[in-house]
């Protein structure tokens, strides 16, 4: 019973979330931004599992939802990387600051 408590996991995932947020806002390369999004998604999934384990062990929702998160992340990564490759073919870079051809 001396293991880590729920608060340990919550603070850890909050820290991971904030690192991902920092990366999402400071990175200028699209692939690096996508990787930061993965950090944020992982922090959220870990919260689901931690709440499931510590507060609602009888309810399967906390164990099932991370699977959905992982599936959505996989779909998102596939589509996003396809768009990045198409974009890179089109303009030879993936810099978000210079990708402003849709700007009015």
């Amino acid at each position: 019973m001396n293991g880590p408590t729920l608060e340990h996991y919550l603070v850890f995932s909050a820290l991971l979330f904030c690192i991902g947020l920092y990366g999402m806002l400071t990175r200028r390369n699209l692939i690096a931004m996508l990787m930061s999004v993965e950090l944020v998604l992982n922090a959220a999934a870990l919260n689901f599992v931690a709440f499931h384990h510590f507060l609602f062990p009888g309810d399967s929702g906390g164990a099932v939802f991370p699977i959905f998160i992982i599936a959505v992340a996989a779909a998102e990564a596939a589509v996003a990387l396809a768009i990045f490759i198409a974009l890179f073919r089109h303009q030879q870079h993936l810099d978000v600051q210079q990708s402003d051809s849709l700007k009015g």
Partner: protein
Amino acid sequence: MPFKFFFYLIALFVLYSAYFVVTARNLFRSAMGLLAVLIGIAGMYLLLNAQFLSAVQVVVYIGGIVVLMVFAILLIADVTQKVFEQSPRWRQGLIGAASLLWFSLLAGSMLSYRFGAAAAAVDKSGSIREIGRALLSPAAGGYALPFEVISLLLIAALVGAVTVARADADNGEGKEGKA
């Protein structure tokens, strides 16, 4: 006691790797950092008694998403260019401070809230058997509809990814050839 030790070990490993992901200037190294983060999170799932999720994390995230990202990084010739454009320093500092502030707000609210004790149920719903039942049962506690929606989303993403990457290849090369 050993669980706590493992928790801190994995937490330090994951946070260091995550820091590496958001600061490394070489994109490929960033991807390797992401790989380390995902392995660490899979370890966390094991500590939380969610073995199936841990396996799914390793198979789908590490075997699928990270490999896909590495492929994309290698396809995009940028990887030879070592140093990437970064945001200006003042912006990094500002966003770093905002993230820290956000973290302190989150952690403060989490630590001040008193979570109730766990319901006295046996922790078996993390097992494959229970997850499978929950995923496919159309009853009130089941997730049959989200399961079907996810399968639709995945097929749409698959078709969409192929279409976007291919159609643009034809168009883009044609246009660039003429221009």
